[in-house]
């Protein structure tokens, strides 16, 4: 068969990011080394699980960041969830004392909501891009408050939770006043059937 130069010769090189592969190997080595050291020194306190949780968090952050064109509000949402889970894990590993749910998660909630508020103010014309993420962050922010309302044992210092939830309500109401139409439009497009 006679071929013309209609197509380029494709170089059959398997694509793959070397940096990611190297990081994967390093992660595995660190995790295994910590596990072995932990096993050889003491099995009373499984500190290697903290390292493992940290590695998982780093990977969540890396995988999410590798995707280009990520909406900044979605990044705030993903990191808020990931850090909250990480702090909860650490709290459980070092013998649960409740600092994660009492203190760190309310701080994370407050920071996430304030970040979204700042984003709304500085780029109000692009707010429709953040609307759905703010709504999810707002709903998730209410979870500790709901837990506190229905259970007396889990949150022992509710003041931080109340402050964080108040910030969440304030920022959401503020955005609603400022960009209520955008939120309704965003819900219309995201929830269309």
């Amino acid at each position, binding site marked *: 068969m006679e*071929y013309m130069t*209609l197509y380029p010769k*494709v170089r059959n090189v398997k694509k793959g990011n070397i940096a990611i592969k190297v990081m994967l190997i390093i992660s595995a080595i660190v995790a295994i080394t910590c596990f072995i050291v932990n096993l050889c020194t003491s099995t009373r306190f499984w500190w290697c699980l903290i390292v493992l949780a940290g590695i998982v968090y780093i990977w969540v952050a890396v995988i999410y960041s590798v995707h280009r064109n990520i909406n900044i509000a979605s990044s705030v949402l993903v990191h808020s969830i990931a850090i909250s889970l990480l702090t909860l894990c650490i709290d459980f590993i070092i013998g649960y004392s409740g600092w994660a749910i009492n203190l760190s998660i309310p701080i994370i909630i407050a920071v996430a909501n304030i970040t979204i508020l700042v984003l709304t103010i500085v780029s109000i014309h*692009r707010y429709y891009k953040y609307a759905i993420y703010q709504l999810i962050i707002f709903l998730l922010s209410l979870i500790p408050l709901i837990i506190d309302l229905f259970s007396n044992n889990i949150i022992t210092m509710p003041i931080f939770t109340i402050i964080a939830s108040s910030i969440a309500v304030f920022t959401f109401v503020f955005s609603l006043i400022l960009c209520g139409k955008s939120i309704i439009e965003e819900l219309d*497009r*995201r*929830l*269309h059937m």
Partner: protein
Amino acid sequence: MAKENNWRRLDNSAKIFPIASSKKYSSVFRLSAVLKEKIAPNILKKAVNLALKNLSSFKVKLKKGFFWYYFEDNNKEVIIEKEKDYPCKYIDPNTNNDYLFKVTYWENKINLDIFHSLTDGNSGIIFLREIVYTYIELAHKEDFNQKLRTERKISNNTEDDYLKNYDKKSKNSKGGKKAYRLKGKILPLAAIGVIHVNIDLDELKNRSKEKNVTITQYLTSVLIHAIYNSNYKKYNGKKPIKICIPVDLKKYFKSETISNFFSYISVQTEENLNLDSFEEILKFVKKEFDRKLTKEEISKTMSTNVKLGNNIFIKSIPLFLKLIIVKLSYIEIRKYTTTTFSNVGRIGIIGEYQKYIDKFMMLIAPESVEKIKCSACSFENKLNFTFTSTLEGTEVEEEFCKKLKEEEINISVEGNGVHDFIS
């Protein structure tokens, strides 16, 4: 910068593609125009941007909703690149400024790879034609005046004409048997082999007329004959050979939409059909086309699909669950087709522009189940029949060419060299 928050729903056919697609199943087709001159990338970029002003429905990105995907306006810059990969590869929005089409060039050729959610082959041609017209105008300013450009009327209607035309009361069309799947060693490293068969259109028309069949019926028969002789017999096939033929619904229903508006018919060989006889195959294919290519039958298939997409239960399944269900079931659905043959017909070009164009080509992405896909389009006195394949061997393609030569039809063959390098 223009406000970037207009959105629109996906049409009924478009809904399935983002849910079912992956790197292995790209749902991408390619339309190429080969000019008689080397492509200048800077002119091509200007041409694409100008074409997009007339066809803004292509200037969109795909967004995830809770129940379905949707399109949103995209104001990012369009990326124009030199061709360096296999055709019809998965278009990663993250590396393509979120666009669902990709424009590449190579020597004299302009490629337009389109994700099927955006539109079908027939409307894709409108976009390619607009790019080509604008490119020629920009490259040969002295030969064209403003009048020609402004006179071109292009519809940018994105209405879902499936919803407008489907019959709520129509009975559901019946599903057939599982089809014979082409067998053979797969090309390494996700390569796609391309073989273009340039067929003399006058000779093909004459031969089809002699046999009292249409060009599509004739080529479908040659394809069944080639599959039977080169693959089916060799691997002792038991299941029927089933060719899926996409149908342009604009021929049957009034429509000006630039979105998807196609359906399909299936030509399925029967047990009592003598596949050794080409004449028998021709008669059978003609009978199948006559039976299935009627407005009633097409409406039945279209309505079955629209009703499925409109089913309140399916609508209310969250997207993340749809993704799992459809991905699993789509592998099964595709087992009901041996191959697809899409003939978009003649590509009409305004007289003044014809002298700059050599030919047009259409390619469809092959995948793990349908290892070979076929497409055709014609320009001037040539019909370009294209095989895209993931198979290492080229027996089907060779048998196809052999049959055309036996039928005394003049052909020439071109390709992307994948099969050449391997053998």
